[in-house]
């Protein structure tokens, strides 16, 4: 048990996860929803070049976020954002920033739950009311979050091989349908549409910012950047292959017209008469979303608990679940509106919290010489 965490006052067990577990968590969190929702938006913007959109810019964005989080962590070891924000910015502004992050995380969770509901509704359980799907997911997330970070991490370790296998299945089975000429011409509209498209996957990659709230729980802090970097590389690979397969099978115009191109691909592929493997694949995909949702809810709870210093984490769980549940029901949009939000509004909002604010915070820390210096004084 680590003393500093008890000092943090959030009353959760001093759990530790390894760097590998962290990398798996981050990878599953980003890819679980990303593979379904991102390709449609990027192909609408960058057409046949969309597969390039997830390669460079999002990867760099993710690396910067990871580096900033790591630097803040070095200066304030064993503390998380709500704690050191007050040290850096002063009590009032620090609390304000934490509240901002709590709202961001709340909305982040709401979006994930709604994304899940829309997808399952459209794809399979068309007669099941969305609230029932949302409730099931929230209960699972709530249960996992109540058990703590270590449980979520172990869950992720279990799901990862299944997730990768099912993903590889789709890619492998789509090879006979692939027509590489569909990717031509390259960079037809120049670099601008590509950059515009990159914003969306970049905001997804930036989700690694949740590390701000559980960095002290990683047992080898120096592993965060290298292992997190590998996770980002894997994300870039998955996003790229995902879009590459969809475009080279359906072409850019149809891929952009599908709401969930990768899911349509899983319904399209067949190998020697084996068809309809999509239900199996979705099953595994859903388990990825459960992990994302659980981690999101966990982080939200940590943030709230640390904002109110001496409140125990467990006492936050129930009220947070109620608030989050209410927000999900209140945020009532249809699929088209949800896609518009994910394409137009959310990337900017989330990049603000993922990239701009942490960078500003780090900059201000350096200017005001707050926190522990690298020399380790």
């Amino acid at each position, binding site marked *: 048990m680590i003393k500093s965490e008890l000092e943090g006052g959030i009353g959760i067990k001093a759990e530790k996860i390894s760097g590998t577990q962290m990398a798996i968590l981050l990878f599953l969190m980003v890819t679980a929803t990303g593979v379904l929702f991102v390709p449609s938006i990027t192909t609408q913007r960058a057409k046949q070049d969309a597969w390039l959109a997830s390669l460079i810019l999002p990867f760099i964005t993710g690396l910067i976020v990871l580096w900033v989080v790591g630097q803040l962590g070095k200066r304030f070891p064993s503390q998380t954002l709500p704690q050191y924000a007050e040290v850096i910015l002063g009590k009032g502004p620090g609390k304000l920033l934490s509240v901002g992050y709590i709202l961001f995380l709340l909305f982040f969770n709401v979006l994930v739950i709604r994304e899940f509901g829309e997808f399952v509704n459209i*794809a399979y*359980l068309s007669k099941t009311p969305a609230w029932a799907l949302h409730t099931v997911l929230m209960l699972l997330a709530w249960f996992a979050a109540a058990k703590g970070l270590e449980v979520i991490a172990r869950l992720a370790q279990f799901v990862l091989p299944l997730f990768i296998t099912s993903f590889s299945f789709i890619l492998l089975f789509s090879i006979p349908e692939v027509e590489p000429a569909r990717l*031509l*011409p390259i960079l037809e509209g120049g670099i601008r549409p590509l950059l515009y498209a990159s914003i969306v996957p970049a905001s997804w990659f930036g989700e690694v910012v949740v590390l701000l709230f559980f960095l002290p729980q990683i047992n080898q802090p120096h592993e965060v950047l290298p292992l997190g970097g590998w996770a980002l590389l894997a994300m870039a690979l998955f996003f790229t292959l995902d879009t590459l397969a969809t475009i080279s*099978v359906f072409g850019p*115009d149809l891929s952009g017209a599908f709401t969930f191109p990768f899911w349509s691909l899983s*319904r*399209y592929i067949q190998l020697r008469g084996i068809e309809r493997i999509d239900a199996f694949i979705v099953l595994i995909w859903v388990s990825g979303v459960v992990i994302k949702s659980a981690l999101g809810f966990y982080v939200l709870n940590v943030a709230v608990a640390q904002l109110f210093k001496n409140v125990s984490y467990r006492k936050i769980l129930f009220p947070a679940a109620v608030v989050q549940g209410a927000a999900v029901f209140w945020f009532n949009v249809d699929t088209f509106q949800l896609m518009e939000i994910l394409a137009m509004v959310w990337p900017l909002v989330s990049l603000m919290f993922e990239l701009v604010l942490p960078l500003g915070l780090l900059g201000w820390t350096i200017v005001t010489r707050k926190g522990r210096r690298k020399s380790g004084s």
Partner: protein
Amino acid sequence: MAGCWNSTEVEDLALFSILGFDWVHSGDKDEWLVSALLIDPGSSGKADGGMSSTSKETGEKLLQGKGESIEKAVENLTQNTGRVPFWGGIVATILGERAAQEKLEDFMNLKMRREGARPRTFVMVAHGRASDVLKKKPAINQSLAQELNKMAELRMHNLGISCAITSADFAAILLSPDRDAVATGIESLSEVTNTANPSSESQKSGITLAGMGVFVGDRLSGWLSEEETMGYVLVTKKIKRGEMIIQIPTSSGNATLKLTQSRPVIHASVTGERVNYAISIKAQGVVEELGGRELTDAEILKFEESAGKRVADIVQKTVTKAQDERSDFLGLSENMHRWKPSLWKTVSPNWRTKFQEASISIEAQVMISHTGRIGKKLEIKK
């Protein structure tokens, strides 16, 4: 799949296998007529409580619904049956000729939005009404859907006189900025009276996949004959294990060539205002039937030459048809877009006109891999 919520037993589902869409004139207005074949494994030929279904004694039933909008017609399809429609098992959707000419957009919107219908279902266009096709009996298979599926696969892979188009292919081309669509043509054959047993109901001899429907933008504008379809397959597909039968005129009557492999290469260029396309086809084939004569090496060379001419001739007919119809279903403009994007920029504002006016040269090389002779010609006494 409805899920546990409102879960439905299999016998309560309306399992559609083929859907037909017609835009018909009824009374003084136009409306949609949607026909559907329903798989009904439980009852073989037993009429179901006087509903408007025609039993076909094949485990398939025909349902029809009418409506001013396509959605309404689909709703009406099942409203009298007390069953829940299930779209996941559809093999093909068939569009009537008039619907394809006038109402393609409504049809595609329905198709793309009904996520239950899978992207691999075939899209076909009927000569005349789709509902007439659905009324036919299968010739040898258990169900019309099975027959259609097998026919599409066989003809696509082997003969080259028809080509299966999935709804994903079809939609991708309709949405693309540089190509026109085609869809498999389907025809209901005329009735043949069963001469062996004239008292029985006249035998409806079923359906055939014949040629393809050609689209310009969102309307059906014409048809490809079987030979023109062959030309389409030769220009657009890489054939690996074909059985395309082509008759080659020789000095001693027609010989039969079976094309087993073929590969098209298209090259686009622009001279002045004019677009040029060079289509070159390299094919391999087997001489199937030559009246038992032996071919010398010189004769083989000569035969290859006339086979090349014949293939080029077939392709030429298709190209002429495409330019006449002003429909670039061969994907020549698409090819330019992909491989010569800078040329495409100058052509794209009026690409159909440019395609129509383009000069298209065709070159075909056929290599005979072996002559299919397995024995001497039978000498039958006169």
